[in-house]
């Protein structure tokens, strides 16, 4: 026993010394020839196959690996050329795209041609791919490649928004047949595109490494390596930035951390009004089916005051379903500025002079938020008793789809205004089939919406969209509440961080 404990002790001693040695020996710095940008990534990656991709952070990686025929200008959100140098259409039915020559695929897959475009769209349309984005492309009637640098797409019906469909996003991202086939069932982890960066390595629990695609058609990116570190906690991420462990913090979502980073002199890269957060009113509800009640709710809550009080950086009030930067946004639609008296009057007219109980379904992810506390307070001032029902996110999603709620919420993350209006207001998309969670159906709006999509004349098209927005904001199946702002704080030496209206960053523009 004695000899046992003695040898055990000496072993422990040696282990202790080794331990100290390793803890305090400084790591050897790597040779700094090529620039590396260390970026915070905030959740577990879920894969980068355009046909089956979800969540903004994954989409942001794919955005830098792939290209579309068109893409979005980082600053204005407008459609600009990408793999297609130019395009023409006379009737919004037949679209001819002229492709850029000499574009190289990553990982030695050769030159990009028209056949790749047709393969990519056919892949989405193929039921075997099981892409949830298939409905975006079902409007295609035929696709042809008269030569390797021209694609002619004929649609079943006129669609003035087709350039959004072929943008560098989801179904619009062009993939390479040979690479897809080589990857087999691991496509989501082996993306090959024509974008500025390619996926070098990935550890799904901790790290994603992208390397510069030297053959990128706009020229190689300034930063050679993008090293994404998964840091889930917002406070930890802020500490990592202050510690100099990361260069760029993808999406800081805590107001107090933003304040600390701002005070510490970090660069506060941000985009405002990227998406509206709306209240979904279930029109099958006996109380909410009265438009006066819906308008009363809108008048009763002062969102500008709420956002200014709780998150002046991360939120702004929203006044419409569409954001002011969108090309078809209309200023003519009615807005509901805070007016408690008007709300009371509308309620009395609707037969609820003493108010009613409004049950609000929400996700428990953030607990009872400050915003909800304010909403309860504002509504109580006009006699509406707001009852919160907090459930976990999957339950929330399911009950919203089924229509098992009175009022719920949604975020509208899309750059395509037509897609927002169609998904949320067209009767074909009434949930659970589509995203029209309010179960809204107004034939007048529907016909204007369909006409707008087909209209080739820009002015007439704009008028029709203005009409749609006017009706929607009068009927009010959805109440715009707040618009989100997105922050990517960085070290001061990091330049060119522009967050686009999909809340994504084009890393090709970044240097340090």
């Amino acid at each position, binding site marked *: 026993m004695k000899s046992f404990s003695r040898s055990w002790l000496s072993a422990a001693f040696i282990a202790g010394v080794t331990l100290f040695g390793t803890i305090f020996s400084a*790591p050897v710095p790597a040779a700094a020839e090529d620039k590396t940008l260390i970026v915070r990534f905030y959740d577990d990656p879920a894969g980068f196959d355009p046909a089956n991709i979800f969540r903004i952070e994954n989409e942001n990686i794919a955005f830098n690996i792939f290209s579309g025929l068109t893409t979005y200008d980082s600053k204005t959100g407008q459609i600009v050329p990408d793999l297609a140098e130019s395009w023409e259409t006379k009737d919004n039915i037949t679209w001819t795209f002229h492709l850029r020559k000499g574009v190289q695929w990553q990982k030695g897959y050769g030159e990009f041609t028209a056949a790749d475009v047709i393969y990519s769209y056919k892949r989405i349309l193929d039921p075997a791919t*099981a892409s949830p984005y298939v409905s975006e492309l079902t409007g295609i009637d035929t696709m042809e490649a008269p030569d390797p640098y021209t694609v002619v797409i004929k649609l079943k019906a006129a669609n003035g928004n087709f350039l959004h469909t072929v943008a560098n996003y989801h179904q619009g991202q062009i993939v390479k047949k040979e690479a897809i086939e080589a990857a087999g069932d691991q496509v*989501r982890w082996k993306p090959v595109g024509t974008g500025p960066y390619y996926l070098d390595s990935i550890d799904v629990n901790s790290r994603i490494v992208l390397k510069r695609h030297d053959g990128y058609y706009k020229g190689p990116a300034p930063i050679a390596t993008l090293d994404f*570190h998964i840091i*889930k906690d917002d406070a930890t991420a802020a*500490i990592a930035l202050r510690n100099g*462990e990361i260069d760029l913090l993808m999406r800081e979502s805590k107001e107090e951390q933003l304040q600390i980073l701002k005070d510490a002199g970090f660069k506060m890269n941000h985009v405002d009004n990227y998406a509206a957060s709306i209240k979904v009113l279930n029109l099958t509800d006996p109380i909410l089916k009265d438009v006066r009640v819906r308008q009363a709710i809108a008048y009763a809550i002062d969102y500008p005051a709420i956002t200014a009080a709780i998150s002046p950086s991360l939120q702004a009030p929203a006044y419409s379903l569409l954001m002011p930067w969108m090309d078809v946004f209309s200023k003519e639609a009615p807005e509901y500025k805070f007016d408690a008296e008007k709300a009371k009057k509308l309620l009395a007219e609707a037969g609820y002079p003493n108010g009613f109980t409004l049950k609000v379904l929400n996700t428990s992810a953030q607990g009872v938020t400050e915003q909800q506390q304010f909403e309860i307070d504002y509504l109580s001032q006009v006699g509406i008793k707001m009852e919160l029902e907090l459930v976990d996110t999957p339950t929330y999603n*399911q009950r919203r*789809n089924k229509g098992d709620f009175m009022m719920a919420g949604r975020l509208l993350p899309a750059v395509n205004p037509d897609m927002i209006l169609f998904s949320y207001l067209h009767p074909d998309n009434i949930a659970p089939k589509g995203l029209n969670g309010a179960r809204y159906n107004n034939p007048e709006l529907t016909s204007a919406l369909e006409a707008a999509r087909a209209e080739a004349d820009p002015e007439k098209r704009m008028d029709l969209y203005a009409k749609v927005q006017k009706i929607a904001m009068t009927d009010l199946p959805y109440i715009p509440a707040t618009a989100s702002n997105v922050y990517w704080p960085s070290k001061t030496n990091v330049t060119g961080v522009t967050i686009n209206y999909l809340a994504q960053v084009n890393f090709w523009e970044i240097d340090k």
Partner: protein
Amino acid sequence: MLTYSLKRLAQLFVTVLGVVTLVFFTMRMIPGDPISAMAGDNLSGAALDQMRGQMGLNDPLLIQYLKYLGHLAVLDFGNTVTTKLPIVGLILGALPVTVSIALGTILLTVLISIPLGTLAAYMAHKGHRMLDNIITGVAMVLDLMPSFWTSLVCLLIFSLTLGWFPASGTVSIDDPGQLLRRVALPVLVLSMAQVATLARITRTSVLEVLSEDYVRTARSMGWSELRVLFRHALKNAALPIVTVIGLSFGNLLNGTVIVEFIFTLPGIGNLLVGGMNSRDYQMVQTLIVFYAMIFVLINFTTDLIYRVFDPRVQF
């Protein structure tokens, strides 16, 4: 001994089967499923339903259960629902991180709390209540501080202000130095709570044996107080201490969830929370089976260690 081990093995089998069945059905009783968790906000109901069909989630529950048992029987744990990666690979990748944290915590806890608890017992035995009260009081305060809070405080002090340890960065078993730097703070945080429990147990057990006859005999033989305390008293008080250490180790393996989140460590707890949030049935089921096996194994090991301390223990 052999019969005992076999009996334990049979127990393991029954336990795991029970756990598997329970988890399989409770997971599916919770509202929501992997598909709505993954894409619920951006996809229409029709698209979601099509994806469910692809993954076999529209099959009758019993069929799904039998299929699952079939795979389990040949030790095929399958791929995650959301990322299509092999689950066993993910668990094996995450295991070293969590085991390092758990082992480090146990080691630090034992090194601090056993001498501390023994000292407190000795002082109490001698009638010096003061030191005993201080030790017990401090242990209690440490125990009651929530780990998410102590984690952030530790980050602020040791990472941001003093710059001793990084708040983020990769963790790999291939780089033990970096691994140690990254797990040091979590180990410290978790030890705070563990020290409290173990020190209290040590104090109580040692205090009990200090008034035994053989301790008095040992003293009367002229041995030093230290030798009496650690060789005679502590060794005889060891059984409950070993039990608590064994249980703590098991709890630590699945109790590292919060520190793994805050210190961004890619361990088992991270997988479990991620799996739960995304309703990744396959992932959660496999992890629970894994935990069940670990607990049975730890109990078994604890029993074996009893014999080292008390040869009278028979199996």
